[in-house]
């Protein structure tokens, strides 16, 4: 480059400062926009249906029953952070809850062993997904689309496509019947897992390395980050959390059915992307995801209390997913997508 042009360039950083300079309160507002949106939804339905919506039983039910979805979403954001997509989470959930039912009810296994088997399925699925993604270098979207469908086939097979009830009542006790401050224990499990993930993502080098693996895989590799191992760990973690979600799912009703769980995939994705617009905007984060789940579920509960049909769920979750992704693109200045799709 020429010596001639020395000194004639205005520095780009000053330009950027002008462009980027944003009042601090706007940034703070962005961080908590999701919480505000949740409150707004509560207020709207509270006004429209004060008797049935604004009741403690309604809210404690929401908190308790949706813990499953929270945990599933938390499982999903782990590989998403490392740049991989796991479409098999909902099928892992379904298969693990069915495994508990089949082993506990059909084969008389003690509930503890049945749960251990369910968790083992989560680990195995994570390893399987990681193997095909990392060893054969196939996009995780394709691999997990396949493994998910495969697992669902197993679920239908071992259950004869029917619902199995009568799971050991201690599980139901531990998940939904026992309440603390009026809220079923399931909620506290989800919060505990969210807090563990906050710790891992925010305060450990593993969490930061996973973030680099997702955002700059070559950068991470050249900095000596064991990229393959990090992605493996993330797949396994997502499998395990999905299996835990499956365990709670079985515990919520004391039974396992082969299909309803699979419908949780879309809400989980919607919540993951919606959550990424908040708390630490532009990043998948556990607290944002948790709040997003409750925002979405509150909206749907409100609508159904108003007497609107169940098809509204699909409208709501499908719309929320696309809007959430569009929002997160806005947050990140449309410069790159959160995932390399």
């Amino acid at each position: 480059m020429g010596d001639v042009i020395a000194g004639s360039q205005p520095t780009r950083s000053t330009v950027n400062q002008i462009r980027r300079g944003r009042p601090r309160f706007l940034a703070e507002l962005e961080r908590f926009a999701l919480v505000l949106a949740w409150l707004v939804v509560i207020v709207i339905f509270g006004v429209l249906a004060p008797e049935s919506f604004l009741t403690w039983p309604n809210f404690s039910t929401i908190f308790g029953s949706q813990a499953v979805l929270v945990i599933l979403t938390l499982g999903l954001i782990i590989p998403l952070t490392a740049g991989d997509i796991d479409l098999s989470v909902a099928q892992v959930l379904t298969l693990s809850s069915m495994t508990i039912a089949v082993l506990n009810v059909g084969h008389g296994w003690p509930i503890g062993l049945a749960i251990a088997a369910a968790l083992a399925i989560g680990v195995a699925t994570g390893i399987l997904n990681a193997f095909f993604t990392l060893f054969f270098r196939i996009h995780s979207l394709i691999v997990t689309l396949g493994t998910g469908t495969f697992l669902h086939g197993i679920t239908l097979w071992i259950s004869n496509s029917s619902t199995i009830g009568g799971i050991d009542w201690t599980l139901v006790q531990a998940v939904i019947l026992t309440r603390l401050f009026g809220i079923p224990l399931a909620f506290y499990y989800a919060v505990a897992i969210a807090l563990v993930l906050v710790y891992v993502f925010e305060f450990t080098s593993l969490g930061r390395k996973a973030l680099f693996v997702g955002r700059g895989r070559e950068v991470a590799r050249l900095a000596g980050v064991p990229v393959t191992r990090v992605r493996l760990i993330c797949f396994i973690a997502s499998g395990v959390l999905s299996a835990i979600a499956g365990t709670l799912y079985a515990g919520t009703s004391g039974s396992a059915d082969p299909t309803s769980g699979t419908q949780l995939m879309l809400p989980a994705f919607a919540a993951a992307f919606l959550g990424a617009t908040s708390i630490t905007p532009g990043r998948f984060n556990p607290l944002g995801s948790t709040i997003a789940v409750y925002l979405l579920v509150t909206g749907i509960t409100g609508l159904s209390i108003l007497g609107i049909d169940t098809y509204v769920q699909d409208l709501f979750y499908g719309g929320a997913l696309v809007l959430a992704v569009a929002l997160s693109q806005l947050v990140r200045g449309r410069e790159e997508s959160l995932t390399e799709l």
Partner: protein
Amino acid sequence: MILERGTPVLEDSATPNLVVQGISKSFAGARALDDVTLSVGYGEIHGLLGHNGSGKSTLIKILSGVHAPDSGHVRIGERDLPLPLPPGEFNRFGIAVVHQALGLVPSLSVTENLLVRRLVRDANPMIRWGRAKREAEALFSRYGLSLDPDALVSKLAPVERALLAIIRAFSELDDTAGDGGLLILDEPTPFLSRADVEQLFALVRALADRGTSVIFVSHDVDEVIDLTDRATVLRNGRVAASLTTRNASKSDFISAIVGRSLNMTRPPPRTIGATQAAVVTDLRASGLEPFNLTLRRGEVVGLTGLLGSGYDWVPYLLYGAKPADGGTLSVGGAEVAIADVTPSAAMRLGMVLVPGDRPGAAVADGLSVAENIALPVFGRLLPRLMVTGARINQHAATLAEDFDIRPREPERAVRDLSGGNQQKVVLAKWLQTGPDLILLDEPTQGVDVGARQQVYEFIRKAADRGASILCASSDHEQLEAICDRVLIFSRGRVVSTLSGDEITKHAITERCLNSLGGNLQGEAVNG
């Protein structure tokens, strides 16, 4: 072995096909082109030469409609070009461009590649593959090419791909421009052997004989002399020389490219210890002849050459970022097989790599300055299983001071910073580890002039501390500013070495330009 050609249309004898009149263009206040004027006649092959940053690529981008000039105009045939043009529109004006990357889809067949742009342009809903194939065959045989229309492009030899890209560009001209047309070849030859280059030139000459004007962009003076009728040399955005090839010597070209001497900030000679710090023995990889190098403590060695000469691979191979076939490296008292080196092993041996691809390989630019700086030392920032954001920011704040990273806001995303400051982030990230061997690739690419001096200082400071530095660069001015020794590569091997006071921008450029022909080696070029 110059082929006989019909009479080229030259100089003022006829109305030129392409007229570029008084083009100027600035980017963010930096002048890239300054009053550039040139003309190309029908059937003329016109060379375009100049350094990186001379304005060559800006001119090509203007001609292909990407940028609009600030002033001046471009006329082709009878028409003024309304610049900038929407993508693909330049075809309509009888202009076709072959970029170095060629723009072929490897997994598709020769015929499909030949048709691809026509498919986009024509509304014809039905493709008649039989006819398309016969047309392709006819086109190939007219120009003596033996390409199989059904072959996959990925199976073609490099030269066949280049030939296909050129004939495709020409075929797009054929049915758009009435006559003439302009074919721009932007360095299509750097990875080809001499024999292949001849084959390619024969095609280009045959096309020019049909009245097409050709602009041939190249670093290689010998090729330009061999192929062109006239040539324009750009330097610092201006036309440094307009030459009629037949009447110009190689040294005319070289002195026009290099220009007169500019005051350089060559540092005072340093005394380098005699201690060997790193020894590379017999490094082998595809495209590289066995490479040997001994680096002393505190020594800065530059690697350079023309595009495709292989010098820029060396840092990546030593670091384990790209796979090597063999060789050993001894550094920091250990000897390792280079083929086994991984980035983390390289880091343990005290090596760091500053890659040339900043957004792709050096920083995750959506993450913060602080996080990027902390990446190689997360483990060290982890006293009690708690790396807090505050700790990371605080760590970065100290380094932002040392490396003058502006603005001093470590939590800001790297992409918000200027190129120079991004590069300071990369240097801070790696130099904080106190490496013994620093591998650099194009360390000042995309770095503004002010920050460039600072980058030089950081590199020199690291060398003074005792680190050995290996710097691959195509910026000869930079090599002059920082190097104690410069190795010049050609076709995968070191063909020339400069050291001490021999290292001038001129000398490096001259050796590079001569590295392919080689007959002017050592001859002084006066500025």
